[in-house]
């Protein structure tokens, strides 16, 4: 199992390795700046657990866990 954005805990960050999936959703993730080499920081989950809020390229983005699960990251060690 790959380590994905979904597995990041609050406040942790990681470097994007690749984005799984296909078609429009994957392209949208690229367009929003989630490309290999980008740093993603997990901010929080919504009060009901889904979606999650992340910081990427200096802005806040909200994605569902299902989409977060398709973004493979290498966790940054603090």
């Amino acid at each position, binding site marked *: 199992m790959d380590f994905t954005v979904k597995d990041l805990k609050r406040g942790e960050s990681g470097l994007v390795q690749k984005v799984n999936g296909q078609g429009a959703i994957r392209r949208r993730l690229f367009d929003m700046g989630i490309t290999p080499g980008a740093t993603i920081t997990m901010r929080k989950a919504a009060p009901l657990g889904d979606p999650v809020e992340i910081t990427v390229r*200096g802005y806040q983005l909200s994605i569902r866990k299902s989409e977060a699960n398709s973004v493979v990251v290498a966790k940054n060690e603090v």
Partner: protein
Amino acid sequence: MSTLRFALAGNPNSGKTTLFNELTKSTAHVGNWPGVTIDRREGTFKDGNIEAEIIDLPGIYSLSPYTPEEVIARNYIVEENPDVIINIVDVTNLERNLYLTTQLLEMDCPMVVALNMCDQLEKHNDFIDRIGLEKALGVPVVRISALQSHGIDKLMKKAVLAAAVNRKSSSVLRNTVLEKPIEEIEMRLLEQGAKHPLHKAIKIIEGDAHVQADDNLRKLKDDLIADVDDIEALIADLRYKHITKHYSPFLRKSLKPGELTTSEKVDKIITNKYLGIPIFVVIMYLIFHLTFGENLFFIEGLPSPGVLLQSGAELLIENIGDLTTDFLIATGASEWTYSLLVNGIIGGVGAVLSFVPQIILVFFFLSVLEDSGYIARAAFIMDRLLKRFGLSGRSFMPLLMGFGCSVPSILATRTLDSERDRRLTMILIPYMSCGAKMPIYALFATALFKQHSDIAVFGMYMLGIAVAVVSGVILKNTVFKDSKTPFIMELPDYHRPRARNLLLHVWEKLKGYIIKAGTIILVSTVFIWLLANFNFKLQMVEQNSIDSILGTIGNVIKHFFTPLGFVGKADGWKPVMAILTGFIAKEAVVSTLGVLYAGGAAGDALLQTIASNFTSASALSFMAFNLLSVPCMAAVSALFAEMKSAKWAWFSVAFWVASAWVASFLVYTFAGLF
């Protein structure tokens, strides 16, 4: 000299709408893009010698082929050849905004970059090297603040200068591994005489099916990039790498990495795990309370601004009706003229116009939430709940407003970003029991359920929600099965809303309602009046009697209602008639019942006849049918205007009738067991 045409392009939340309003003042007019139902806004900029037509392209993040907005934007530039592209860039979110810029630069079109929100920059003690960025991008860069109208004149002057010069396209993908493939395909396209060859070459390489290319070209492309296994990822990656390496350094931030911005600090509270939902509930309740509350802050007899203004509007319409009556009596007008004008047109159109104050309030609050950035947080908080029945968090607000009135709620679906979500939400809104249905429940609950009347009324509200959930699940898995919208949503920085912007928003939406709904309603009002006052021989009969066309129709179609239990008796056409008149306004159901059962009497007399003509089960079934079936004329005309597709609007109407029938049948059968 012909008028210049400037196309405004940029990300959502980049301040594009504000800049557009600022440039065009009050000249903007809204239409649709050919073939799709996305707003097309155009207006004129006029200042001294400069006159230009401004075309507001849809807010987009990219020029990918996946969303209609993106396809529209690039088709416009490719096919309509604007004189200049004005690319608005939110300087506080530079990297992601410049991603679109790198794609726009690939078009053979003069371009000016407007760096927006420069006032925010100063506030944070950040600095942007405008000249450096201008050199790196190769197009003029202007600092502006659309909110404070700074830099607008300069922007337009630069744009006019840019329009005079032909600009050659450029791409950040040159000097990368893709240089050779792009050049080869661009050469071929040039030989074929294609416009915007660089843009098209890159799109062909991306595998974009929207760009026309012959088989030879596609084959050449496949050969050229045979060793690349993921071309879309590579191109997006190259663009962002170029931005971070060559453009981002021009922005110097005073904030240390890891330090929180004001927006992030606010968000710590507003979307907090424990506080997020309570704050959301309080905000929603306040909006609802201020717009629809009968007793403001629970003070008996003190109406909320919405209710106060609405009763004011009703009073005004009543006075117009009275004045007209006096005038008609004085001039000795015929009975049917009186009936048409006062009962028909003033009554019907007036009922619709009396919603205007509440529409204004709903839109005012919605615009505040939208401008401040909270609406995205509300969607973030509620998404989980609505995901189950095929919607996203953004639909929550319009659905909730539905408990007040369906009309502004249907108009509020414009804040949703996909056509599919808009349509599904509009179909579900009328199931949220609106304020006008309350008198129906009140009548039946008091007549038949006595001390349990509150439970009966509450049950109706719950029934509406239950039917909405079930319908959502059904529609999600059938009609809307193919389209799935992801929830990838930016949470923009918080801003203080501006009064001028709010007023513009409200006015724009209200204008649409009054014009579109007003015309349809006038026609249908006259039509229904005809049906209720004339028989098939076109002789005038007593209003709403069995002899009228509507009464005759009611008497025939009552068989359709037989399984629902409330048309069993000989005068079974009466409840049917009440349902039909409910189409004008739901309050009319009660007054029609009053006329037909008790000769216009209200109070105890009406309660008694209702109690003797209905059973508990048939009363529940009748209430359920009125709740779930086609909403009032005002809501239906709003639906026709907003669906922008007669097919979908009729589908909604059919769906409502069907769901109401099935649910009422189940209610009647189930209640009959006790």
